[in-house]
């Protein structure tokens, strides 16, 4: 594959789990400073796609490249070091570490490596950025759901990722929290970060994404600007069909 100027390109990627084809010949690319949404009904393979980009799973076939070089053969830690950072659909914090240590964890081994005082200061800055610095020394178990999500985001940002993957980062938030959450992602957009986000919240997708890729049963069924894609009859059918089932 020649480097076509995109930050990330997914080329004919398929993932099988036994007999189930979770992702089927997916093809899309993400430009630098672009915010791309992956949408689609539950079980359509969005998380599996994210997992393959971040290296949790290897594709059964096809390849994924970052800045023109292939990353789909690399283990997750190597992909992280190249500059891909992710959050998990179900938040994953490190329960026996403090909030600050959770964020330091992202700063020490990642894309840019820091240690000691420098890592600590950097972690404080990231916590401040997501509005959580006051909770630095709290145990993780005392946090509300949105606060856990914010800490996880701070951990990912602490690694200075070139590409950010957010898997349903806004899910499970109440209306006020949702507002805070959307604002946070808006800030990331203003910083010109390259982001792929999986979302169900349509308002968020409309206001945040430059472009959307729509998946259904592992297949890409549409791609384009949010407004165009969300009024596409096939997309509407995919969503409604899912609701009827």
């Amino acid at each position, binding site marked *: 594959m020649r480097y076509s100027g995109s930050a990330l390109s997914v080329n004919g990627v398929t993932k099988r789990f036994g007999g189930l084809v979770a992702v089927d010949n997916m093809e899309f690319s993400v430009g630098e400073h672009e915010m791309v949404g992956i949408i689609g009904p539950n079980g359509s393979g969005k998380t599996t796609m994210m997992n393959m980009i971040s*290296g949790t799973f290897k594709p059964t076939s096809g390849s994924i490249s970052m800045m023109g070089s292939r990353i789909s053969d690399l*283990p997750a*830690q190597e992909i992280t070091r190249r500059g891909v950072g992710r959050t998990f659909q179900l938040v994953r914090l*490190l329960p026996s570490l403090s909030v600050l240590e959770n964020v330091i*964890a992202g700063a*020490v*081994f990642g894309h840019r490596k820091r240690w000691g005082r420098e890592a600590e200061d950097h972690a404080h800055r990231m916590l401040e950025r997501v509005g959580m610095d006051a909770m630095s020394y709290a145990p993780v178990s005392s946090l509300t759901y949105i606060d856990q999500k914010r800490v996880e985001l701070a951990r990912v940002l602490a*690694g200075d990722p070139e590409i950010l993957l957010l898997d349903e980062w806004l899910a499970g938030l109440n209306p006020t929290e949702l507002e805070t959450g959307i604002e946070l992602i808006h800030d990331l957009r203003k910083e010109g970060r390259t982001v792929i986000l999986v979302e169900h919240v349509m308002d968020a997708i409309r206001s945040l994404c430059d472009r959307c890729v729509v998946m259904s049963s592992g297949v890409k069924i549409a791609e384009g600007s949010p407004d165009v894609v969300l009024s596409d009859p096939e997309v509407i059918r995919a969503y409604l069909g899912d609701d009827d089932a």
Partner: protein
Amino acid sequence: MSRSGFKELAIAACLAILAGFVPLVFNNYWLSISVTAMMYIALCTSWVMFSGPTHYISLASGAFFGIGGYLVATGMSDYQMSFWLMAGISALVATILAGLIGAATLRLSGVYFVIFTLGLAEMIRNLVSWVQNNFLGSRGLYVLTDFTEAHIYWMLLVLAAAAYFLGWYINRSRLGFALRIIGNDETVARHVGINTATAKIVLFMTTGFFGALVGAVIAPRYSYIEPNQVFSPELSFMVVIMALLGGAGRLWGPIVGVIPFTLVWEYVSLQFPNQTTMFIGLIFLLIVFVLPNGIVGRLEQVAVKIRQGGH
């Protein structure tokens, strides 16, 4: 954070110096018990360095210990090698072996690792017996040195102190931080950029290193060694029980676990020589139901209560 780290190290150093006087103060009976205790303190401390943060239960202590004892015995007995050389070689062999075992099993889930290490001592014992019977002629090996019980004690003390210091140093390093993250969530560890396999393998190699050295140092105590006897799976279980009794969450856990255990063990095996297995069972129940985080965990709980009560 760093200040309390140095305080902990200073306390450990004072304890080590005090422990150095044991052979000068105690009679032979108590010295012999102290040697056993010091041997387990060294083994358990290096066990806790790996198993504490990663939560992988290693049953390989007996195998590494056996490599130390056997190589010292066979080298001195059959090839007139010096004790020191053979101790060094055994540490090297066990470290490499630990690296290979780690590379083969630590990428898999913890269960495979436990089962593999469980069979390891037995496997090496059979291999050694087979080589001994077919190529070297089977006979016992003599380890004749000028070491007294006190010398052995001091060497073990040095090993225990070295293991403690290394553990303390690692805890403060990136590697130690990586291990804590791995112990919490291995998936997250990989996604923050940690090479989890390498971190675990390196730590496991340190247990191989210390296990073999302890086995080597203790060999002169027995003068006569059957290759069959030094590879004992029992020792692996003793290490796990004492480390868990003390508490695997802290580096000093083994010290507060080994000492009471050895004392009670001495009493039990004198008074009820046929009930030692039952005693181990009871200790195990005690750990599971009363002290899940060991004596250390309970002490820390009490400390927190006292602090809260004081306010």
